[in-house]
């Protein structure tokens, strides 16, 4: 017969292993829960344990914008030379906000301005939070845009916030056309060896359709109402592939670098079906991607 001490130790170890096995089953089950349950768990954790950290990020973002605006006003009051010496990042941010305001005014009340927050955790590289939600008219599938073009789409909506994915997400795809309507296809993400190498590709273009390099590609509005027609996506960069003699695909230079998009507008349920006019002045005539060189 084994000593009493070693028997109780063995029992304790046995209980521990059973406990660990049960928790492991729970962890595996969490991956297969219905999406609604997963969203509920996420919502509860974001509103409780994670709330202070999300709140910190929101306040820092607001402070950053507030500081930028205060600096800008101070510079105007002080002198023209102070304005000229203002940091280029501040000028860029001001320009972005002004462009956003102009876009929202042109597009109408269906476009709601929002600030983008990045979770920055493992597995969330293509995911972002916006500080508006259901009460602002945001719904699942609402397109997220900025003055340059399409940033991504909303995937989850809560009362005061929403979660979206940008075009670098592998699930991202949007029905597209050339701005002049001469060719149609499907724009998808092509992951690179590293996240920074992600690119967009226009698939399914008819083989006999000649496309000029540099042509603007916009949403076609065929998504069953998800994306209105005319949101700029990117410009044709080069021929990527020919599938037999019936289809071609092209690499695109994206109009928006998602990491640089800090302020956006979200198209709510009240948005109209054609958005081409809203971007005509900002993007259709522009030559380069927001934030510099396109990703390769």
């Amino acid at each position: 017969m084994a000593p009493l001490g070693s028997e109780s130790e063995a029992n304790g170890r046995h209980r521990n292993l059973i406990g660990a096995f049960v928790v492991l089953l729970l962890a595996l089950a969490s991956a297969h829960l219905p999406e609604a349950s997963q969203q509920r768990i996420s919502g509860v954790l974001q509103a409780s344990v994670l709330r202070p950290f999300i709140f910190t990020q929101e306040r820092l973002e607001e402070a950053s914008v507030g500081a930028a605006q205060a600096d800008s006003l101070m510079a105007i009051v002080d002198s023209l030379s102070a304005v000229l010496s203002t940091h280029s990042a501040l000028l860029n941010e001001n320009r972005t906000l002004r462009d956003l305001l102009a876009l929202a005014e042109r597009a109408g009340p269906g476009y709601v301005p929002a600030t983008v927050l990045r979770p920055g955790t493992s597995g969330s590289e293509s995911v972002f939070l916006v500080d508006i939600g259901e009460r602002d008219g945001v719904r699942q599938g609402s397109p997220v845009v900025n003055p340059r073009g399409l940033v991504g789409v909303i995937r989850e909506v809560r009362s005061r916030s929403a979660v979206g994915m940008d075009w670098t997400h592998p699930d991202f795809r949007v029905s597209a056309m050339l701005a002049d309507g001469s060719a149609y296809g499907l724009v998808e993400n092509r992951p690179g060896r590293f996240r920074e190498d992600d690119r967009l590709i226009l698939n399914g273009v008819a083989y006999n359709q000649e496309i000029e390099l540099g042509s603007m590609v916009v949403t076609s509005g065929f998504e069953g109402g998800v994306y209105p027609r005319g949101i700029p996506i990117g410009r044709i960069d080069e021929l990527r592939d020919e599938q037999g003699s019936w289809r071609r695909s092209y690499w695109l230079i994206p109009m928006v670098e998602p990491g640089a998009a800090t302020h956006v507008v979200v198209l709510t349920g009240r948005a109209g079906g054609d958005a081409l006019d809203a971007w005509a002045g900002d993007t259709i005539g522009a030559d380069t991607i927001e934030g510099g060189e396109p990703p390769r």
Partner: protein
Amino acid sequence: MSAPAKVRVWGWVAILFFLHFLLHVGLSYGRPAPDLLTLGLLLAAREIGAGRASALGLFFGLLEDALSVLAFGANSVAMTLVAVGGATTRDLFVGDSRVFLIAYLFVGKWVRDLVHWIAVGEGLRQPFVEQVVVQGALHGLYVAAIGIVIAGLAGLGGES
């Protein structure tokens, strides 16, 4: 391990938990910030049995999953497995030598990245060589380096 030493370890686990979310979520540092949550979990797992370690791993994993909704569950599975593995090493390796601690933290973080890569699903994962072999090893070294600094501050890993 003595009671004051245990309190010191748990204090550091709480600090690492707070710092992880402050750096990743609050200050949006993203990838340059180290994975202090896994480091804290690995340190805690050496102090408790597999049952409680797995519960802590599940809790940490769910918190990470709450911010990466498109692969919900992947972090929970990875953290739970790492916690169970970490707790199991108590029975296999006695003592807390510095060399063991480095190897333990490196392998723990690497395994966490590997399991996450598997659990995240085919549609979301990056190529194996880049994400697991290269980046996983670098992240493992990063966590091990931070872990050694923490161990020095907390007075852990001095035994041989």
